[in-house]
């Protein structure tokens, strides 16, 4: 049975009218753009909070048993890190201290009368002598950070909220004057509009609330485990799990990243909204494609009936429609991809979210674009079925 023909009928049906082709391609490209943007937001929602985890200077992390998301403070006793240090193969264990609600940033460059309310900014604190973060920029300020009240400011922090982001300025943080000695790059997420790095020493002074500073530093938020060279990370991971008490948990960096992503992508309302956005993008895209395909089918219905009348099988005619849908997907995907790439650049600059086009996202959107057009094609087949060869006469 003849299924394909030498004449590229599906391609020609789609492209013969150049004016309409432009609209068709743009329509599909728009659907592709929708998919990319929604997926991009969803990805960014999950990707942004894990930027910090990605920069951690060790393959394993220790957090409180109660910990479930980075932006929720669940500290654990620092003793646990000493216990972890005892495990064979563990090179070093570093505590990280985080604070957000209490770390209110005040833009003192603005006169008090015009100043808006102080805004919380995430504080990441550790011992500057320890390679807690894989961040050469941060490392370069090691000496400066050791001086109390010196801080680093994330250059991606939002100027709208915190005022001018630059080095060399003095600002008020948690009712203390701090000095911005330099900038580093981490990025914002849906919970944090800015980041500050400081020494554990400064952290203790800022957030001691009258208690002895040692008391503040007795509870860590994240423990970063560095292992010896050539050590078996998996074995250390298992030993840590066995040795450490129930009040803490050990994760590999990857597990910790995935847990954080799952929290944002699946548990938060925003995750659901963006996921829904992707579904809506898909449906809107399918409707656009269906309009295009079904218009063509309606236009060529007598021709399809004629093909049936002269001896082409139904399967051949269905194939023509589905292959046209496939071409539409391919033609729409390429410019849609390009436009999305541009939009990603703009969005990541303006809102500071990591809008990245990972190969798997491209593949995913490509797959959904094909699926979208195939679904439209299949829906349009019901119309083709009505192309009665007997109706061609008379």
């Amino acid at each position, binding site marked *: 049975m*003849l299924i394909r023909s*030498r*004449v590229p*009928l599906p391609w020609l049906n789609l492209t013969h009218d150049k004016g309409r082709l432009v609209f068709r391609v743009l329509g599909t490209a728009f659907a592709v753009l929708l998919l990319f943007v929604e997926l991009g937001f969803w990805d960014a929602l999950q990707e942004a909070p894990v930027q910090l985890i990605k920069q951690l200077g060790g393959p394993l992390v220790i957090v409180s048993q109660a910990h479930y998301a980075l932006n929720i403070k669940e500290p654990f006793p620092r003793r646990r890190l000493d216990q972890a240090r005892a495990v064979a193969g563990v090179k070093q264990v570093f505590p990280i201290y985080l604070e957000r609600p209490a770390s209110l940033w005040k833009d003192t460059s603005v006169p008090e009368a015009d100043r808006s309310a102080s805004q919380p900014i995430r504080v990441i604190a550790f011992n500057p002598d320890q390679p807690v973060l894989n961040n050469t920029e941060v490392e370069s300020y090691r000496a400066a950070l050791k001086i109390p009240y010196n801080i680093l400011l994330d250059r991606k922090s939002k100027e709208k909220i915190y005022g001018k982001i630059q080095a060399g300025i003095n600002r008020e943080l948690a009712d203390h004057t701090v000095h911005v000695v330099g900038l580093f790059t981490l990025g914002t997420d849906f919970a944090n509009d800015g980041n500050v790095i400081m020494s554990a020493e400064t952290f203790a002074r800022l957030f001691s609330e009258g208690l002895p500073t040692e008391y503040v530093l007795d509870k860590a938020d994240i423990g970063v485990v560095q292992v010896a060279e050539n050590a078996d990370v998996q074995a250390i991971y298992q030993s840590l799990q066995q040795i450490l008490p129930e009040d803490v948990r050990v994760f590999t960096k990857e597990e910790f990243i995935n847990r954080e992503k799952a929290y944002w992508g699946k548990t938060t309302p925003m995750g659901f909204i963006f996921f829904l956005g992707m579904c809506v993008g898909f449906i809107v895209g399918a409707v656009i494609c269906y309009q295009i395909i079904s218009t063509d089918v309606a236009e060529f219905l007598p021709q399809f009936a004629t093909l049936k009348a002269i*001896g082409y099988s139904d399967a051949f005619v269905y194939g023509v429609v589905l292959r046209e849908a496939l071409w539409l997907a391919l033609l729409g995907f390429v410019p849609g991809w390009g436009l999305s790439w541009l939009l990603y650049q703009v969005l990541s600059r303006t809102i500071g979210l990591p809008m990245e086009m990972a190969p798997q996202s491209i593949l995913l959107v490509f797959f959904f674009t094909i699926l979208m057009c195939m679904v439209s094609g299949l829906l349009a087949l019901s119309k083709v079925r009505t192309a009665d*060869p007997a109706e061609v006469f008379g």
Partner: protein
Amino acid sequence: MSTAAPTRRMRSSELRKGPTVIRVEALNHWFGDSAETSKQVLFDNHLDVAQGEIVIMTGPSGSGKTTLLTLLGALRTVQVGEVEVLGRPLHQLRGKELVEFRRDIGFIFQAHNLFSSLTALQNVFMALELKESGRKYLHDRAVEVLTELGLGARIHYKPARLSGGQKQRVAIARALANRPRLILADEPTAALDEESGRQVVNLLKRLAQEEGCTSLIVTHDNRILDVADRIVSMVEGRIKSNVLVQEEIEICEFLKQCEVFSHLTTSALTSIAEEMEQETHPAGTVIIRQGDEGDKFYLIKRGVVDVIINRGKPEETKVAALSKGQFFGERALLTDEPRNATVIAMQEVDLYTLDKPRFRSAVASSEPFRKELEKILFQRQ
């Protein structure tokens, strides 16, 4: 379903041309799905078409001619009756077999139904590819058939850049590309000017003469009636008349030469000619026998018959020899008396016949005819 087909209206086509390519027996067809809503559109139709014939089907819209055409083209499934086309029993074929059968037929539709996205050449390819796949063959044959239709210079044009006539010719090229042995056409000239229409029918005629290609054309276009070998006229789902045009013209010529018909108007002659059937008898056949009841009127197309009257004497008396253009058998029909003579074929004879009711109604409807017959009867007495 009656197997005894009424042969009256079918002058046997075997007399004229090649083998039968279309045979329709007791064909009935209904539209509608349920018993209550279904409507019968074809009633007990019979039709034989020989190879190389050009058949024109006429009739008011809704008379069922297009339905008949779609049944012949395997575009619908036969419900009741038998349809044999190009030797394939369509009433026994289902689904895929019907689809494949369609590839052997050249369809010409009223609307050209060309893909606006394809060039003339590519539109023709779409038909050619059903049969062949060689790139060179496809190209050469498509160019050939388009050139034959006067479109050689426009093979790379898309329909938007072709005139109505040119588009229809591309559609015809598509129908003819696979050299079908049967062409089914629905108003092929409706969208064409007179000259283009003429070109199309001349092409069909040439195909019939040179390649024995049979054409069945549904049309209201009187301008092309002259190419028809047979005109089938349908009314309300029934084939009302089915005449071989050439034969009818021949009969009319004959009738005009016969004294008895010489005063008839052309339309009266035509209507009598339409009613006539043809019979062939070998030499020595007794065509009518003295004393039998009269049932037919005879006109000699070819050959010689002897009229013999037995007047009670031992030897029979030959009273006349009749030949081409002469007639016999009218008296018993007019007078309701038994045959007054025996007629024997002296060589193979072809006869045109008119049965008694039709003869009587012809006489009744035509005053000059009745007078002529009476006059001749009087003279013969």
